[in-house]
């Protein structure tokens, strides 16, 4: 049998593999030390926050921790009829503790998320509780308000028992888990998120297309013009890049507003009447225009770097072999730019899908994106777990797009420069 392959030894009799490992060890440690700061930085600033975000989006321990005895007592309750005395007693003890700690307001907020009407009955309970006598808490609590005798409210409490919840994800899709534990849609007038998701995808998609259509000729010019002119053009492409994003967006506001320069021009050339100047800002148009301009360099640069590597003799070969200029372009030049197109489109799309400042400033009501909604929940409603859930959905969306791209074109085909 040939499986007895001899171990190759060095001249000193040490196995070659061992010797190699030893020799390479120092280099490996050196290489690792070189990347270690970056690795640490990435872990602290990227991987850890994303993990934290994932955790926060499903974390639901607040209520669990506030009502430990209640949930323990509820374990035996089947939820069909009103819970037994032990549950009421446990709830009374938990709530009493919260009142003493002065944190009962949070519970009211949380439970009110689950079912409207909790706030008032909890307040009332807090007031009446001082006069409670020992024993028979069920009776006493039910007497505080008739809702306490409604099994729905107790079911709502029980629903908050698990440590984790996916309700925020459902909410981001305009859905919720109803009293029977079924996933259903919120009423039509409250479906805001799905519109935002779709609008985000739509705007990102069309911004990518617009960027591509504009960037392709520019990149081609950049790659083929003589150095003298191409440098100048490159500066023109990069100049907006060097300007603050806020300044650029603000200048679009100056240009696009109803009394702005573009509208003045339209009126001046007689394209529109003085009375019906089109609204180009605080709607989708504004978002499209500003985002396309701002993201254009991200499309130009990958395309340029790929086109720069395509030898001009290829186009010449195409023509000398009998292809018309269009055929030579379509069959020879264009396929060779696909890696750049892929990289540029992916970059622009991913940036566009999470764009925030520009839509916030020029988007108005109909031009804002999902990231604006995330920011809203971060800053205004302070529902961070909801914001985290949406953030993660966005991240997942980007990863899915990346995966699809990899399946269709292959990530090896990306060339960023």
């Amino acid at each position, binding site marked *: 049998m040939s499986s007895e392959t001899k171990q190759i030894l060095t001249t000193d009799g040490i196995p070659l593999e061992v010797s190699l490992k030893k020799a390479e060890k120092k280099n490996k440690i050196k290489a690792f030390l070189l990347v270690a700061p970056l690795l640490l930085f990435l872990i602290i600033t990227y991987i850890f926050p994303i993990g934290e975000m994932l955790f926060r989006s499903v974390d639901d321990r607040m209520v669990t921790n506030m009502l430990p005895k209640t949930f323990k007592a509820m374990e035996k309750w089947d939820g069909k009829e009103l819970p037994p005395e032990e549950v009421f007693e446990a709830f009374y003890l938990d709530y009493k503790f919260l009142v003493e700690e002065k944190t009962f307001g949070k519970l009211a907020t949380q439970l009110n998320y689950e079912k409207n009407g909790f706030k008032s009955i909890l307040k009332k309970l807090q007031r009446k509780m001082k006069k409670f006598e020992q024993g028979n808490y069920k009776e006493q609590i039910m007497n505080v308000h008739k809702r306490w005798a409604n099994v729905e409210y107790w079911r709502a409490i029980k629903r908050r028992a698990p440590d984790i919840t996916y309700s925020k994800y459902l909410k981001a899709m305009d859905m919720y888990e109803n009293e029977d534990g079924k996933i259903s849609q919120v009423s039509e007038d409250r479906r805001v998120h799905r519109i935002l998701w779709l609008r985000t995808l739509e705007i990102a998609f069309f911004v990518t297309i617009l960027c591509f259509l504009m960037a392709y000729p520019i990149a081609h010019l950049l790659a083929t013009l003589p150095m003298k002119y191409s440098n100048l053009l490159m500066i023109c492409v990069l100049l907006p890049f060097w300007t603050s994003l806020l300044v650029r967006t603000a200048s679009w506001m100056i240009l696009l507003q109803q009394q702005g320069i573009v509208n003045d021009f339209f009126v001046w050339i007689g394209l529109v009447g003085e009375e019906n100047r089109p609204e180009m800002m605080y709607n989708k148009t504004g978002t499209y225009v500003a985002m396309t301009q701002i993201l254009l360099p991200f499309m130009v640069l990958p395309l340029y770097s790929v086109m720069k590597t395509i*030898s001009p*003799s*290829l186009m*010449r*070969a*195409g*023509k*000398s*072999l*009998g*292809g*018309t*200029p269009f*055929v*030579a372009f379509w*069959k*020879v030049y264009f*396929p*060779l730019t696909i890696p750049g197109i892929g990289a540029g489109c992916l970059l622009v799309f991913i940036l566009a899908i999470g764009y925030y400042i520009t839509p916030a400033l020029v988007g108005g009501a109909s031009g804002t994106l999902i990231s604006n909604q995330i920011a809203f929940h971060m800053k205004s409603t302070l529902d961070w777990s909801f914001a985290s859930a949406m953030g993660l959905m966005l991240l997942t969306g980007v990863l899915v797009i990346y995966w699809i791209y990899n399946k269709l074109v292959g990530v090896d085909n990306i060339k960023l420069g």
Partner: protein
Amino acid sequence: MSKNSEFVKFDKVDKSYDGKVLVVKDLNLDISEGEFITMLGPSGSGKTTCLMMLAGFETPTNGEIYLDSNPISNIPPHKRGIGMVFQNYALFPHMTVYENLAFPLKVRKVSKDEIDKKVDKALSMVSLTGFENRMPGQLSGGQQQRVAVARALVFDPAVVLMDEPLGALDKNLRESMQYEIKHIHESIGVTVVYVTHDQGEALTMSNRIAVFNDGKVQQLSSPDKLYEEPVNSFVAEFIGENNTFQGEVSDISDGKCKVKLKEGEIVANPINVKSKGDKTTVSIRPERALINPPQKMDNNYKGKIEEVIYHGDHTRVRLNVLGNPEFILKVPNSSQNIDIKLGNTINISWNSTDARALDPK
């Protein structure tokens, strides 16, 4: 049927890129059908520009180019039907060898069967049968070159242009490719216009060579004539090795002339000198000067050996003759060469017909 001796014709062609400098000056060149003609010259001599004008990628500033008696200046490149092999092959990297070869046929709407047949034939011509499905990146430089040649020939063009096609190959491969291209040319009889700066390549392959310098054709003739009978000192210098003497004509008669050098005088063959007093450069090929020749020659001098370089089949000897310390002699390595030692003085001779008195440099 006689072949058209003006199959490709450059008629008073000028080319300038910037309106200030002429890259090609008043070029008149006739190329006959089936000929292998090489444009040879140093870089910047205008040879590639001529090729590009013929291919249609540059337009002549003045004059006209005719292909089979039709002016082609206004015909775009893709309608000229001229095959071209580029310096760096210019194979389409995203297509297989088959697709590369099929490209010119597909755009001509040739049927699938016909394409298969022609691609097969072209590949067997460059002995690459079986490589149809390879990508150009998977081929060696020599194989890529052959694919490029096959692609330029597969659609049966009347003329094939080759722009320094062997420049990127190593020496051995380059030599074998030279023969291969030459044989392909011989077997299919296509007209080839070949551009190179490598004189060895030009001499090996061509029917005729056009030596370019400074935008002008310096000499257009067959390789042997070019080497043996250069018409001016540029050609003499550029093609092959060359020993030169600078001097002044002191006498001219009977197809011979005497040239006075700084030290001594030589008898030479007047090519570009007309009368007494003309400045001249006399050029002698290294192998035309002999040591102790058996028969008498009309130039006999003594030279001191300054350097001996062994070259395998021959030895190169640097002599100091008539005040020229750079006089090179090529001595075949045979037993006769006894006296070739550093510092020895030897007798060398040459015939005055081989010493060509050309224009001064």
